[in-house]
């Protein structure tokens, strides 16, 4: 049973109109697939997301899903790693395998001229991986090297510290790569278990763009994913970003201190999400025009870059931000950020800021649809956030509907200067640690 829904993406009023036709269908095997069919360039971009990901690491086996994912390209069927890669290179196909907190991302890009061979090879890597000992040791060594690099990276140390403080024992509280100890202890059985737990058919989303039709894509997806188990272990429970406001300093000898900061965020399906999105754009999301870039960089020259992001993870929403300044200036940068956080929560934004943000956000959206690869990413991203294809045409009206009152109400409710936690990695000068004094009213 298949139905096709064609949508025209209407672009900026005066611009030439382009048509993005999203075809949704269900494969004979029951997998939902979204397709934009275009023969302009003889290749296909395929994006698959499987919900779950590294948060499904079993107790005491942190890093298993990540290590497993790294091994999918290292041998399958009767091919060892080199044989597999030799075959792939000969087809000029590229395959991607990545583990995230809440999903596994599988990507393939292949030429029309050898699509069948490329898909067969990709399939083999997903449904029949070997996980042989030589490959396990090789990839384990790479993961351990990555962990050693992280231990010397101010950004990685800041993330690790903030997430651990905010999420504790929840999977979000630790690095999905695991620790040197947990990775060293992983066995082949752990890896096979991680594969069974996470590569499951019932949690799959598929987006494809390019030189293929819906019927062929349905068959391809069934072939590719049909042999995987229907479902896996329960997903982890929801949690909250819970650390309280203040500053944590991690001493690390480097000239420029890096600060990561965060507070609880807002769910993707919250009625106020778009108001929050616009608010974040004005505060720190909007490139050169944001308040934080203006105050911290343009007016004071305290940093090369400062930004904030809404991060609605599947099991906990967060607002995160990042800034980096020399050790003797990071204190000033943090003071300005805290003041701006308090000011926007207290006083809100202006109509002029709201209008400018809406113009940018609505104008920028259609510009994202400018290639097969980017569109495939958008299609699969929409499905993982439970959106319908109509969202493509409706999204800008959700942005337009946001009022000044909405933004300012959400600013007051959502942004909590006293709950904003900074983790500073470096050797900051003159920065008080521990809970900070209340900054409300310092303007």
């Amino acid at each position: 049973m298949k139905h096709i829904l064609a949508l025209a993406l209407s672009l900026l009023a005066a611009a030439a109109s382009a048509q993005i036709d999203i075809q949704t269908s269900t494969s004979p095997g029951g997998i939902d697939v979204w397709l934009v069919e275009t023969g302009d360039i003889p290749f296909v971009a395929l994006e698959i997301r499987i919900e779950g990901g590294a948060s499904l690491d079993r107790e005491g086996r942190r890093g298993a899903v990540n290590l497993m994912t790294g091994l999918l390209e290292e041998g399958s069927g009767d091919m060892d790693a080199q044989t597999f890669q030799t075959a792939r290179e000969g087809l000029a196909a590229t395959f991607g395998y990545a583990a995230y907190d809440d999903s596994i991302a599988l990507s393939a890009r292949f030429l029309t001229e050898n699509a069948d061979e490329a898909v067969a090879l990709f399939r083999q890597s997903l449904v029949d991986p070997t996980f042989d000992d030589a490959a396990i040791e090789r990839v384990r060594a790479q993961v351990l090297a990555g962990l050693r690099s992280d231990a010397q990276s101010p950004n990685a140390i800041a993330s690790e510290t903030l997430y651990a403080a905010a999420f504790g024992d929840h999977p979000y509280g630790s690095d999905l790569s695991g620790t040197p100890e947990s990775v060293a202890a992983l066995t082949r059985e752990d890896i096979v278990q991680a594969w069974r737990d996470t590569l499951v058919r019932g949690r799959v989303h598929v987006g494809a763009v390019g030189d293929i039709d819906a019927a062929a894509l349905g068959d391809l997806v069934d072939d590719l994913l049909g042999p995987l188990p229907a479902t896996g272990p329960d997903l982890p429970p929801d949690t909250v970003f819970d650390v309280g406001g203040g500053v944590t300093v991690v001493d690390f000898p480097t000239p420029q201190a890096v600060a990561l900061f965060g507070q609880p965020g807002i769910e993707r399906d919250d009625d106020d999400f778009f108001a929050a999105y616009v608010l974040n754009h004005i505060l720190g999301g909007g490139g050169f025009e944001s308040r934080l870039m203006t105050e911290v960089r343009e007016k004071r020259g305290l940093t090369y870059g400062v930004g904030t992001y809404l991060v609605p993870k599947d099991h906990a929403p967060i607002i995160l931000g990042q800034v980096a300044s020399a050790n003797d200036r990071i204190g000033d940068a943090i003071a300005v950020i805290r003041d701006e956080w308090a000011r926007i929560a207290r006083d809100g934004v202006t109509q002029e800021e709201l209008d400018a943000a809406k113009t940018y956000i609505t104008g920028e959206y259609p510009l994202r649809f400018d290639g097969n690869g980017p569109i495939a990413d958008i299609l699969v991203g929409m499905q993982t956030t439970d959106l319908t294809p109509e969202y493509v045409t409706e999204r800008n009206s959700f942005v337009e509907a946001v009022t000044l009152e909405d933004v300012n109400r959400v600013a007051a409710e959502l942004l909590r200067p006293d709950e904003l936690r900074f983790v500073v990695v470096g050797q900051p000068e003159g920065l008080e640690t521990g809970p900070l004094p209340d900054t409300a009213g310092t303007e």
Partner: protein
Amino acid sequence: MSVLRHSLAAIALPLFATAAAAQEVTTYELDNGMQVVVIEDHRAPVVVNMVWYRVGSADEGPGVSGVAHFLEHLLFKGTDDLEAGEFSATVAAQGGSDNAFTSTDYTAYFQRVAADRLPLMMQMEADRMEDLALTEDDIRTERDVVIEERNQRTENNASALAREQMMAAQYLNHRYGVPIIGWRHELDELELSDTVAFYETYYSPNNAILVVAGDVQPEEVLALAEEYYGPIPAEPDLPPRARAQEPPQRAERRLIFADPRVAQDYVARSYLAPERDAGAQQEAASLVYLSEILGGSSFTSVLGRALTFDTDIALYSGAGYDALSLDDTTFSLTVVPAEGVTLQEAEDALDATLAQFLKDGVDDEQLARIRTQLRAQEIYARDDVSGIARRYGSALTQGLTVEDVQAWPDILAAVTEDEIMAAARDLFDRDRAVTMWVVADRATIDGGAVTDTDPETVDDLDLEDTE
């Protein structure tokens, strides 16, 4: 802004589209010397507007390293028509994004907007080509921003600091040895007058290339270019682009870079190498293959096989070659040793592998696979019209012509094994190499390991004798 019409300014060079380059490319030249390249891609109503200047950090004078990049930042400040920051704010108000980048050989500015917003972008870009109005205040604040950028990219990153030392050792005489972002002590001293002098000299239509890519018609782009850029006079005193060149390298150069922030010790090697030259791109094409053969795939490349699969020498190995460069470029090799392998052992194994490769030649099947992948890259590249635009901009600012860019896929396809091996033999001479050991702790290599080079290895490396 007045409009000046040119009766016969444009010379169109239509491209005969091949299977590998479906986008139509049309080129013009304005009377004032500004080149125009239009790349059509009508798949989405989007346009990328880029202006590339034939000036980069390697064109800086002594003592003002970083001024090219600093000026790039300052172009977002005010002009006679726009307030500081108004340029980007205007782009954003159109739903667009903008930025800029500086390299050793070029400085480029771009906006990505809906196709019908192109005239406004051109108007603003032309304005700041001619009418930048900087203040002492701009300099003070933005210099701090650039210093923080250097902190972020370089001072906080041991590998970046190591690379900076390596390039300084590689280039004795050429400005490629000076970092694009500038040496910190010179950045501290950059003044308004330095930036203004640089701007007055180099920001001129006869030193610029307009690249417009996306849903546009070439004649319309030409008309807009004539309207906005046409009135700007050519700079009569634009200096020739003659930088001090490298002398022949006659002695191997070796460095040890130690920094406790190095997470993983490694060996880096670079050789001075020829780049793509106008009408003469064959040797560079051979070096592209050589780089792919030696280090392109961690599974099937010569180094990957020899150092990671056949032995347990390396956790990672790689090769890199920058074919686009105005002057002599570099070919580089890296080996990250596996647990328990010393840097000396890793370097010896690297040299032994190179020596063996020079004896064995290229594996036919590997060559065929790389040829297939290079051909496929041309197909995949068409999905990213901004990438195609960058290809033209960087080529045209680095001594190549539109014809060279369009000939490149065919030149790549025609490279033979003999040419690859000839290029390899010319390249791999340790007397023309820089080798750097990057370590967390110098004490781990003390005790003579650095100078204790196995004499047999040295013989193997005397590649002039291997044939």
